[in-house]
Structures are given as structure tokens and as C-alpha cells.
């Protein structure tokens, strides 16, 4: 008997590998593919790993986590977020997927009519309220500002932190920005020089929500009311790298982006999370027409799933929810004023 053709035994074997190794092994053979995708042991293994990754005490002590926690403590959950999420057309549950510059750009180019789709997922937007689990997938390396209104004149290679440095009214900006956002900007500045060769992953769990991030990015209020950031520190990456055999220490942006997307999909289908979002969305759509088109397409679906109307795209993105906490609301106003400069 060939043990590699025995789904039970192969499942037992593969259960000792981590999910990212499994993804790599899916194309070894059809049996590998089948087992790695469906065997319960694999899912169990995956879940165990995720639990371990996100729930360890040392993660909570991580400085990045503290900043993250501070951010979320400052802004009350459920009132601050307008997420870009997606609907799963397979299971019809609301679920987001971590789109990034690269993915969106790629998919956008690949579709003849300009409709951005990614497999079964489509883009929509709601205010997340009472969401049990949130997986934040930041945008590793996606810190170029070329699509943002604020810095159209800057070269493509300009990063957020460089942009901050060049901003003529930096001091004023700092005084106006939410302190956590500024803190993140400082983080970006610190790590920018090493960024291209070292992508960093961090994780956090607070209350019953999961947050995962690779390098962070602003979401500008023009497009989204959430400024979701996960500042990452080198030690975090190193720690995870050692723990998981350097799987997290990737040299390529695409790799980590794909990894995070897989992570999101798996977690969703395992029922671990309902919502997945990215800390970076907005501007990768080429035109506002496209954005509005997608909102229109998904509006009814969102509504049909019972999302209160006030949270649907009809009110998004130009009007911020009225119940935003004071710091965020203030930030939005300030940002818009700056935007108009």
C-alpha cells in the first residue's frame, strides 16, 4: 500500500505540518491536494497554530501589540469602523478578504470590463458593528502614496514616512493627527530602510477579536473612516520566524500577501472569523466610478443579509457615521481640512 495514497494516513502526516507548508504541498499530487484541503486534522492543525499564534501572552507584551491595543482602546469598537469587506458567494456569509495593492491591481488588470473580482469575492463596505472577530490584514509594502490625493506630485517610490518627512506642514500635521497615527508614522520611519527585505508580521488578540498585520498603512478618511494600523517591529518578526521556522520571514511582498489571504480564507471557512478586512483598501481601484459601481453591486446583498441600512454603502463613504468617537471624528475633520490644502 502506498501510504501517500491513503487519505487517513496522509492526513495524519500532514497534520504535523503547518498551514503554509500544506499550501505548498497541495500541488504535489491530487491526494496531497485533497487531503491538505479537506482533512479535518489539517484544519485542526491550522486552528491550533492560529490559536497559538494569536493567543500567547508574549504577544500581548509586544510593543506593537500595545500600540494596537491602545488604538483600539481609544476608539470604541463598533462605532469607528467602515470596513471594506466582501461577500462570500459560496456560503453567502459576509466575509472580507485581505485585498492589497498587488492583488487588486493584478485582478483589475486581468478583467476585461474593469470589474474587480477575486474568485468568489466582491467588494463592499459597511460599518462593522458587533463583529465577533476581525482579522486585519495590513498591506505589506503598500506604503507608496501615488494614488492618494495628498501626494500626487510625489514620486512613486515615496513612502508614507518619507511623505511625512516632506510634508511642509509636518509639525502642524503632527499636532492634528491622532497620536496613535503619528506613532505609527514614526514606526514607519524607523523601519522603512529595512522594509523591502524584511516583511514583518504581527498579531494580536484583544477581547474576542483577532488582529493580524503585516506592515501597516493608512486608510485615508476620504475613502474609509478607519485608520487601521499595525506597526510591526523587527523583533516581532524575528520571534515568529524562530517559532515557525522562518515561515514568517519572507523576502517577497507577494508571498506574504498571498499567505495572509490564504489565512483569511481558511479562518473564515473554518468559522473562526466572520469578517476580514484590510488596513489598506481605497485607492487601488483606478477610478471612483469603479468604486461606486462595486458599492452599488453589493449594496443589495449586504442589505439582504440584514445589515442595518445606516451601515450600508448608501451612506458611505462621504458621510461619516454620526456616532464616531470624538478623537476619530476630530481626526477625520482635520484630515479633510488638510486634504483640501
Amino acid at each position, binding site marked *: *500500500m502506498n*501510504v*501517500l495514497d491513503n487519505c*487517513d*494516513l496522509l492526513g*495524519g*502526516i*500532514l*497534520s*504535523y*505540518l*503547518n498551514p503554509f*507548508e500544506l*499550501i*505548498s*504541498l*497541495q*500541488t*504535489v*499530487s*491530487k491526494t496531497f*491536494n485533497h487531503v491538505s484541503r479537506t482533512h479535518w486534522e489539517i484544519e*485542526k*492543525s491550522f486552528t*491550533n*497554530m492560529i490559536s497559538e499564534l494569536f493567543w500567547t501572552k508574549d504577544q500581548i507584551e509586544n510593543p506593537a501589540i500595545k500600540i494596537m491595543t491602545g488604538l483600539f482602546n481609544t476608539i470604541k469598537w463598533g462605532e469607528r469602523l467602515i470596513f471594506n469587506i466582501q461577500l462570500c458567494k459560496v456560503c453567502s456569509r459576509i466575509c472580507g478578504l485581505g485585498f492589497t495593492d498587488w492583488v487588486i491591481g493584478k485582478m483589475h488588470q486581468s478583467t476585461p470590463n474593469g470589474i474587480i473580482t477575486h474568485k468568489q469575492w466582491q467588494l463592499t463596505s459597511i460599518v462593522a458593528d458587533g463583529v465577533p472577530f476581525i482579522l486585519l490584514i495590513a498591506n505589506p509594502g503598500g506604503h507608496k502614496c501615488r494614488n492618494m490625493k495628498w501626494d500626487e506630485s510625489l514620486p512613486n517610490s515615496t513612502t508614507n514616512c518619507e511623505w511625512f518627512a516632506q510634508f511642509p506642514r509636518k509639525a502642524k500635521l503632527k499636532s492634528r493627527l491622532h497620536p496613535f497615527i503619528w506613532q505609527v508614522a514614526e514606526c514607519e520611519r524607523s523601519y522603512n530602510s529595512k522594509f523591502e527585505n524584511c516583511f514583518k508580521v504581527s498579531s494580536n488578540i484583544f477581547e474576542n477579536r483577532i488582529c493580524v498585520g503585516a506592515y501597516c498603512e493608512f486608510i485615508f478618511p476620504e475613502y474609509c473612516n478607519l485608520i487601521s494600523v499595525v506597526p510591526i517591529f523587527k523583533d516581532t518578526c524575528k520571534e515568529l520566524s524562530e*517559532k*515557525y*521556522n522562518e515561515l514568517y520571514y*519572507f523576502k*517577497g511582498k*507577494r*508571498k*506574504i500577501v*498571498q*499567505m495572509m489571504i*490564504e489565512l483569511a480564507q481558511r479562518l473564515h471557512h473554518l468559522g473562526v472569523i466572520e469578517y476580514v478586512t484590510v488596513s489598506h483598501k481605497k485607492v487601488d481601484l483606478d477610478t471612483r466610478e469603479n468604486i461606486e459601481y462595486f458599492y452599488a453591486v453589493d449594496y443589495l446583498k449586504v442589505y439582504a443579509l440584514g445589515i442595518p441600512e445606516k451601515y450600508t454603502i448608501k451612506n458611505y463613504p462621504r458621510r461619516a457615521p454620526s456616532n464616531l468617537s470624538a478623537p476619530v471624528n476630530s481626526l477625520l475633520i482635520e484630515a479633510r481640512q488638510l486634504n483640501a490644502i
Partner: protein
Amino acid sequence: MFYNFNKIEEVKIRLRSAEGHICEVEESAALMSSFIRSMIEGFNEVTEVSLPNINSVVIEKVIEYMRHYKDKDPPIIKKPIISSKMEENTSAWDAGFIDADWNMVVDLMTAADYLMMIPLRDLCCAKMACKFKGRSIDELRAEYHIENEFPSEMEENLEFQHPWRLE
């Protein structure tokens, strides 16, 4: 109920291999196998169990494991494994025990599965996972004589989905 406290020798269970050889093991050790346990408990005074799917070399190896762990619990190997070296994943004894060639590990795993010895099966699974860990797709296919069953279209699709997988 009568207990023979004067009994000196423990009851031996005779395991008949695929070749017809008899391998003896103490009953207390043999009970690690749920399969053997069910045979003993299901049929009074059974002292011989036929194992037509397992050769005597493998049975001896299984007995070695049974004897080692008859009075203690085998260590649990953490998932996912942290290293491709077994000694970094489990105890030194387990690592040494399972330090065998591919065919032996496969036979042992199959036997453990048949005998319903979960700890031994897990040990074999972990050992084989070590052999997979860090290996490329091509390496695995070549080493285990796995043909590429995917049509090129599917390969391309997978490559698109996971462009990093070959890196």
C-alpha cells in the same frame, strides 16, 4: 474473582506474523494496542492473535515500542512540528526508535494504524512529516515517485493563487 498472586511469569500474548512466525509479548504491553485488547477482552483466554498484514520484523519493532511504554505514557508530539529533526520534536528515545528508513516507517505506521496504537501511529506520522518538511514539490515527487497529475491549466492556476509556493 480469583487472583493468582504467586504467578511469576506474566501471561504472554503470541502475535502471529504474515509469515506465520510467532512473536511473544507480555500481555500488559500488548494491551497498548486497542485491537489486541479487544481480541483479549472479547474472547476469553485468547493468547494468540493473528496479524496477517504485518511481517515479523515490524511486529518485533512494535513490541519494542509496547515494552518501552507499557508503564508510562508516550510523549505527545506537538503540532505542527517545529523541526525536520525528530529529536527536536520528541524524546530522544522516540527519535531513536523511529530513526528508520522510509519503508520501515511506512510499515510501522500501517501496523500501528491496524493495531490501533495511536501514539505509535502519531510518532510515525510525525517522522514522515519531518521528511516532507522543507522539501520542494519537485523533490517530493522525485523521491516518492509521484507523478504530476495536474493538468497544466490547473498548475498555472495554483501557481497564480500561490505564487510564492515555489520560492
